[in-house]
């Protein structure tokens, strides 16, 4: 039986609630942010739950202090606030300090990309991957459905270090109906293609799958890869998978060309000496205040299914042409 779609945070928190029964070292810290599952955690484990209030700087520092006392800490808030309001606390008390003193702190940010659809740009989050991946000590994870999100919980409890999980606020369709993928490689091939490969993260993996279906209708067979470990994927494994393609398209629900997944992949291709052409799809840089459905907002900023199909079709013709024929 395939799993019923769930909010990532609910799947993650259910797993956490279950584990708190057996693991007395798990401590949950919220910055006045909740969910129905969280109510159970608060009720059943009052001694290992604390709400610091609307105070993300203190959320991070208190989490660091708890972690130094040996707790496995889960800090929970809305994605833009848990990354950007308290970035220096993350840098100093988690990234720097964890290099000297072992600590396990997991930042659970809810509201990736446009998932707070009508709340506007304060609550939407297009910069978090960029700034969090700038901290070498912090692992950045971006699940595409609740099945992966739930599995990431076990990774978080079993591995030391600061980590950032970027969770979608909406209930997304299930991608991993047959069960969670192995997290080891940090990515999962969802569809094989002939010359082009779409590499997406989070919500954009769904967009990539839809776009691939549309592109197939016009004879363009593209591969689709779901990248869920943004900072910790297996480079050799990805290199091998990409080896059969001529072009790569990155898709992220974050600003285009501002240091996010696209920049990471450009860097990766450069370092492995790949001659593969790459095209980056992300949010047109700039803030917008227009209201609309998530699909409508995505089309406005050039990351909707229609925009992606059009861009990939344009790229498909150029990608197979060497940048400089003399080099080929």
């Amino acid at each position, binding site marked *: 039986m395939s799993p019923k779609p769930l909010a990532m945070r609910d799947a993650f928190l259910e797993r956490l609630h279950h584990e708190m029964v057996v693991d007395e070292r798990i401590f949950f810290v919220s910055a006045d942010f909740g969910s129905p599952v969280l109510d159970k955690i608060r009720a059943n484990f009052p001694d290992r739950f*604390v709400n610091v209030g609307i*105070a993300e700087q203190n959320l991070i*520092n208190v989490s660091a202090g708890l972690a*130094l*006392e040996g707790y496995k800490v889960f800090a929970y808030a809305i994605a833009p606030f848990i990354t950007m309001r308290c970035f220096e*606390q993350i840098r100093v008390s988690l990234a720097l300090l964890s290099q000297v003193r072992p600590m396990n702190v997991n930042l659970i940010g809810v509201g990736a990309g446009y998932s707070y659809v009508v709340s506007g740009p304060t609550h939407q989050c297009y910069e978090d991957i960029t700034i969090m991946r700038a901290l070498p000590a912090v692992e950045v994870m971006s699940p595409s459905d609740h099945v992966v999100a739930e599995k990431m919980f076990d990774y978080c409890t079993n591995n030391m270090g600061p980590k950032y999980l970027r969770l979608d606020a909406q209930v997304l369709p299930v991608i991993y109906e047959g069960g969670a993928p192995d997290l080891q490689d940090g990515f999962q091939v969802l569809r094989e293609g002939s010359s082009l490969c779409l590499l997406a993260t989070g919500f954009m993996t769904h967009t990539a799958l839809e776009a691939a279906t549309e592109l197939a209708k016009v004879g363009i067979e593209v591969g689709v890869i779901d990248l869920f470990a943004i900072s910790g994927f297996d480079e050799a494994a990805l290199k091998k998978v990409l080896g059969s393609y001529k072009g790569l398209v990155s898709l992220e629900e974050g600003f285009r060309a501002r240091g996010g997944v696209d920049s990471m992949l450009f860097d990766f291709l450069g370092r492995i000496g790949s001659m593969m052409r790459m095209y980056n799809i992300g949010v047109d840089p700039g803030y917008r205040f227009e209201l609309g459905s998530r699909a409508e907002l995505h089309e406005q900023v050039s990351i909707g299914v229609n925009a992606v199909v059009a861009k990939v079709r344009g790229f498909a013709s150029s990608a197979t042409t060497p940048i400089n024929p003399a080099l080929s």
Partner: protein
Amino acid sequence: MSAHLKKEIAGIDLAAKAKWVWAETLRIHRRAPETRIASSLSPIEIFVSLYYGGVLNFDSQQPYSPDRDRCVISKGHGSICMYPILADLGFFGMEELERVCETGSFLGGIPDPIIPGYETINGSLGHGLGVASGMALGLARGERPQSVFVVTGDGELHEGANWEAIMFASQHGLDNLNLIVDNNSTAMLGYTEDIVSNGDLSKRLCSFGWECWEVDGHDVSAVHAALLKSKSTRGGKPKAIIAYTLKGHGVPGLENAALSHIRNPAPEVIDDLLKGFE
């Protein structure tokens, strides 16, 4: 140093020890002028009382012993005086004091937790109290008896994150948490009062639900007594000692000067001051 947690160092003359630390701190600064001297001279009696006065439980051979009292030194740059104290107590060798700020030394211009005895990252102000609050919460929830001490400056309290922690600590009745404010009244570019005043800090903290004591920060007996009182008080409130100190204490021209933070006394001035300490 024995491997046992230090509960009391019998027969120590705290005032004499403070003098020695003062001289050693100046010596370090003479060798390593990159260190911040003025703000490292104001908290000497605080640290001497904590470490030699039987206030803190610590084990210099096992700096992270779970049974230790935690001491978070948030005013990092202004704690170079901790270098001779930690060396003297056996956290590392005295010879390390000769290499401050040199290649390969772990004793830098701003102390980091690569130094045995330092708990946290300190160079950026305003983080220590929040981290210490998390430690205190963890200890309290785990029903462990250890205390947490935090030393901040008064200028440092401009950082808003402190006030998030101040409210949090009283909300949770963290009476294992002891804040010591090295109130030297001076930030980098002038007197705290003229930049952004902390007002009546004691009153302010009390209104936030803390228990407070004020003390002359250079009267080592008074500081020592206040620390012991604070540590032993477990009345459901976090506690603060506001220690009124002088930045650049004991150095003519530096003491209580508005710009003392960014001034270095000339080597010959230090040499003169150190006569009689050899």
